[in-house]
């Protein structure tokens, strides 16, 4: 992209221009709000991750020895709820999206900066409600299936209320992003010059905007069921428990894509930079993001094949489910083709991007097993699903998230990360992740049901292996966290554009100045013009 903004800028960066509590919690600067989200979601990631370690430790032996079955149920409820609603849904979208969207489209801020701050406060309010909910935590699983969630005497209301509030935070963030991307692109930034990360976040924002309200009303009805005694989901009052599952997954399946599409966007940015080649099939990748955003609304009931839904519905939903696999496959092939004849540099961010390709492929392909009707009947609610989901969520989203952190770290904080340490951490994360979750595919096929506090002795060897893997994974995470924090203090000062990227965010200072650019850049080309034309 040709523009003259890379000239040395003497203004203080957005990190330095002002300090103190108010300058952060009352800021309307999208970059600071991005950092606030980053810190908040990281805290929840650490909490929920630690819970996972305790759960795996409990599962080291078949009996319940570390925590009681009830506590175990509470733990997996918290692990799921925190990871899904507090970490991974707002994850890349709210933290990196906030930081990067205006920078990448050449704007000074998002369309509604005050609303943006409001979204973050809503997130904090949701988090505060959650803290109260922890006093007597729910044991329903993060899916809150009725009638159990309407009957259990643990505190379901506070947890769902917290998630309801977070939902509005998510809706308003999505709304903000859609308007920003529509109305605030720099001159010359046409739709077909937009970075693919922006396309991905645009698709995500549509899902956030239009799927979240349905889970909002569903959780509200659940709260009403517990407080007012209404009975839409209560069979004793003529209600239908499976209706709850329909409504819940109308949001929660698109939510899976709210989690994964931003990571796909990250990969589309990292691969070309470290291959020094244009992204392969720009339009195919861009449109497939939008296609996923649309089709993913039609597939929710593939979570319900054995829930008691009608056969007709099961068949229709199975078919639609296979439809949504097509755009995903297209993306993977295009990424792969991007590497062809490139000049590939194994930066730690690139390692995460490549492992994304590898792990997400496993996650995506095992999705076919559970999408096929007959196979799903056997695999549903077993460890196979647990493994599949973690391959998509960790192998996909979290790898993308880590890749993004390593990639944009110099831009956020103006410091270079220790790349060697980054690679060591990557090694442990990659190995640990696979050791933890790969055995779970076999456990699932052999019939080990999920959400079991105790299990039959025949599953013990693989369960032990999985637990050992979780320790390796934890070591990797600790090294990475150390690297991220250490580099803040002792990292080398980052140049404005350490990877010679063509994308707009690298054409301003590192870290960027308060209003991103000295002058709004004029865009003349797309941001993937690497390589020699000819």
């Amino acid at each position, binding site marked *: 992209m040709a523009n003259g903004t890379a000239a040395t800028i003497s203004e203080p960066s957005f990190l330095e221009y002002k300090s103190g509590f108010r300058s952060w919690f009352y800021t309307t600067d999208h970059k600071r709000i991005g950092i606030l989200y980053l810190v908040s979601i990281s805290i929840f990631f650490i909490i929920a991750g630690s819970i996972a370690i305790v759960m795996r430790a409990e599962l080291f032996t078949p009996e319940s020895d570390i925590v009681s*079955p009830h506590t175990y*149920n509470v733990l997996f409820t918290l692990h799921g709820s925190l990871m899904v609603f507090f970490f991974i849904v707002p994850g890349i979208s709210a933290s990196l999206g906030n930081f990067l969207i205006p920078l990448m489209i050449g704007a000074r801020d998002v369309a509604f900066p005050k609303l943006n701050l409001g979204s973050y406060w809503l997130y904090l309010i949701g988090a505060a409600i959650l803290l109260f909910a922890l006093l007597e935590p729910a*044991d329903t*699983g993060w899916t809150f299936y009725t*009638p*159990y969630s309407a009957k259990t005497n643990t505190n379901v209301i506070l947890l769902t209320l917290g998630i309801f509030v977070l939902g509005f935070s998510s809706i308003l963030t999505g709304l903000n992003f859609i308007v920003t991307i529509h109305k605030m692109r720099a001159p010359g930034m046409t739709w077909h010059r937009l970075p693919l990360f922006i396309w991905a976040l645009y698709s995500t924002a549509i899902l956030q905007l239009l799927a979240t309200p349905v889970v909002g009303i569903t959780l509200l009805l659940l709260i009403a069921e517990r407080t007012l005694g209404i009975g839409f989901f209560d069979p*004793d009052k003529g209600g*239908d*428990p*499976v209706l709850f599952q329909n409504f819940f997954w109308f949001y929660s399946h698109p939510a899976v894509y709210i989690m994964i599409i931003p990571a796909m966007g990250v990969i589309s940015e990292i691969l070309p930079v470290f*291959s020094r080649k244009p992204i*392969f*099939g720009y339009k*195919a990748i861009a449109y497939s993001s939008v296609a996923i955003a649309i089709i993913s609304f039609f597939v929710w009931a593939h979570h319900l094949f054995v829930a*008691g839904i009608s*056969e007709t519905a099961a068949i229709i939903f*199975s*078919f639609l489910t*296979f*439809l949504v*696999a*097509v755009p995903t*496959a*297209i993306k993977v*092939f295009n990424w*792969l*083709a991007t*590497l*062809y*004849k*490139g*000049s*590939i*540099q194994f930066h730690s961010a690139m390692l995460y991007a*490549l492992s994304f*390709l590898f792990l997400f*492929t*496993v996650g995506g*392909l*095992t999705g*076919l*097993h559970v*999408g*096929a009707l*007959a*196979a*799903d*009947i*056997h695999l*549903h609610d077993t460890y196979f699903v647990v493994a599949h989901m973690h391959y998509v969520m960790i192998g996909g989203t979290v790898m993308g998230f880590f890749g993004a952190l390593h990639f944009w770290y110099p831009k956020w904080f103006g410091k270079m990360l220790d790349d060697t340490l980054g690679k060591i951490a990557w090694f442990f994360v990659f190995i640990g992740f696979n050791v933890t979750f790969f055995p779970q595919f*076999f456990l699932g*096929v*052999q*019939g080990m*049901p999920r959400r*079991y506090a105790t299990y*039959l002795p025949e599953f013990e060897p693989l369960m032990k292996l999985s637990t050992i893997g979780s320790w390796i994974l934890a070591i990797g995470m600790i090294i990475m966290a150390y690297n991220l924090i250490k580099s803040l203090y002792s990292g080398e000062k980052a140049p404005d554009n350490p990877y010679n990227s063509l994308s707009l965010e690298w054409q301003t200072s590192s870290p960027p100045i308060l209003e991103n650019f000295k002058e709004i850049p004029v865009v003349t080309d797309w941001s993937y013009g*690497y*390589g*020699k034309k000819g």
Partner: protein
Amino acid sequence: MNWVPEVASSFAGKVDGVLWFVTVLSIVFFILITVLLIYFSFKYKRKTENDETPYITGNQTLEIIWTVIPSILLFVIFAYGLIVYKEMRTPPGDAVEVNVTAKQWIWIFKYQNGKSTINELFVQHNRPVKMVMRADDVLHSFFVPAFRVKQDLVPGMYTQLWFNPTKVGTYDLFCAEYCGTGHSQMLAKVYVMSPEAFSRWEKGDEEEGTIGTAVTKASEELGKDLYKNKGCIACHSIDGSVGVGPSLKALFGKNESLQDGTTLEVDENYLRESILIPQAKVVSGFAPVMPAFKGILTDEEVDALIVYIKSLK
């Protein structure tokens, strides 16, 4: 190590067929992608800072190929899954019906001859059975890996599944839908019996069926088996911790206060009544949720349980 659980129903092999088909396809694509990924990564590893790279932005033909081929394969998987699914969902007309009721955290099976069992399902070899299922309280799910069947049980609504057991033996039945504290203890056994053994069981000469050796066991040991197999374990601990029901530890001889305000000392008669008709005298602080075991346990079995409870000092 076995890749898949035992193949013990008429369609288990077909389900495995779908599983293997998808798995093989997945492995092919996985290998294709991984090999290319690793090959490209090393072949095109950066040599100098100024490596020249070609300006390739896409290829229409390739895009079409890798859109169309996966689409076709995906449709084939869908169709294959659908065909087997149809068979799994269509019970043959001559299937024997068994009524299944699930409640926190036991399975109750009622047979056409009026018998009923708890946490033990008896079926005849090579005779299709259809489960007509209902949950009493919350969602549960009937899952027998060896038969490749799974179906949720929903309160207020009947669901069904069928299978034709093709192998004599004993199989695990799991609850696969999360249902609360005792979820992972909500296990049962499926006994697939030869026609002779089954008709003997049906006639009722052999009430304990499974625990065929039970007669020879000492009462206390039999009681312990029953405690584990009949679902008591899900709600009543033996270590003093309070579950859904009172702990059995040191229960005998204890003074309990009841919900109607009276107190009594736990003796044999109270234990017997509480097993057979639990709702008669409920200890205060607990919900009256225990199922009645009248007609399910024999007198000898109740005696054995009482001996066992007495032994828990």
